[in-house]
């Protein structure tokens, strides 16, 4: 079937199989930051944005993205780098496998939420699993990043 969509601002037209998951489709277009970490819609590693909303690309069919704007980490290099520095400062990474999906969801949260209590942050990020760390480093990094984004120090 024919689809037409924008990936990181670039118009793409294609003929795809109707059962192609969006995850496999964007990878075939070179967005290799988008990865599969599970088979059950549980890990959040495959997170990308459709029209600015974070979704699980393993769960959405590529056909559903027809006519829409897709954003992956490849399209947010500047911001990702900025946040990455906070992660590094807190020593939050171990293997780093969970990072791309996590960063996509953090950046979506920054755009979407107006208030950021600890509980709000946890509720927003709970769908991003990390098998290495125990989450405390990430949590500190997110809080420092939010503080900086609201005009605080780096």
């Amino acid at each position, binding site marked *: 079937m024919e689809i037409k969509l924008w990936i990181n601002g670039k118009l793409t037209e294609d003929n795809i199989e109707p059962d192609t998951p969006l995850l496999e489709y964007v990878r075939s277009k070179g967005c290799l930051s988008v990865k599969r970490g599970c088979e059950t819609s549980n890990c959040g590693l495959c997170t990308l944005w459709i029209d600015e909303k974070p979704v*699980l690309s393993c769960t959405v069919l590529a056909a*559903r993205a027809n006519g829409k704007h897709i954003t992956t980490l490849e399209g947010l290099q500047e911001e990702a780098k900025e946040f990455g520095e906070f992660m590094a400062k807190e020593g939050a990474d171990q293997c780093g496998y969970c990072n791309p999906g996590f960063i996509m969801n953090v950046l979506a949260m920054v755009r979407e939420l107006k208030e950021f209590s600890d509980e709000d942050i946890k509720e927003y990020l709970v769908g991003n699993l990390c098998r290495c760390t125990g989450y405390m480093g990430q949590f500190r990094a997110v809080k420092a990043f939010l503080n900086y984004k609201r005009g605080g120090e780096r």
Partner: protein
Amino acid sequence: MLTIKEYVSVESLEEAYKLNQNVNNVILGGTGWLKLQNRNIVKAIDLSKLGLDKIEEDEEKYTIGCMVTLRDIEKNVSLNEYTNNALKNSLKDIVGVQFRNCVTIGGSIYSRFGFSDILTSLLTLDTYVEMYKGGIIPLKDFVNMPYDKDILVRIIIKKDGRKVGYSAFRNQATNFPVITCGVTITENKKVYAVIGARPYKAKVVEDNENILGEFSEENIEKFAKYVSENLKFDSNMRASGEYRKRLTEVFVKRTLKKLMEEK
């Protein structure tokens, strides 16, 4: 694995209904559940073009199109005010924000899962399903109807001034619930509880013996016991039936107390 031969984005409900009569064809919600199944679908029917992704409100009711996502409902300010966040509380622990941005209310309610948080919370409200052929059916009847090939078009919630509360117990955050518990106090002070994940489908237990004719600590405890004694509980990999029964008593008590304190 889910395989699909053909993808049809329909122009009308009639077209969708006709296609759906073939057993090899299927309506697509957010594909959250469908993609976990091993299924060979000939025609996948997409309702995206039909404008069913809106929550509408008038003086008497809310109307929620079947393609509205769980996250849209969770974020609807008016629905949160009307339900004192009970609906939101029943949604916020379902996997994660990204997942709730994908899955739909149509797919969730059509499926009538035993573990369903949202089926439980919607049963606390005066809720109806609008089926394309079957017309408008009270949710509490729809729960027990056999699965057919009709289309769930909208969910309707009538505003009648009741108070509702919701709570659930999970072994781990974001996992399926072990027990789900909704409580309703109607405008003329009738109380009922809705218990799901027993692990059976959510069921309403009314206060038929008027235990709560007077709201006292003692009567709340009596009612909580009454609810747990009037339901069937069973065991699965998440918990034993006996444990669920105990939890039910505790959760009915807590949820009802909290609801009364909020008055």
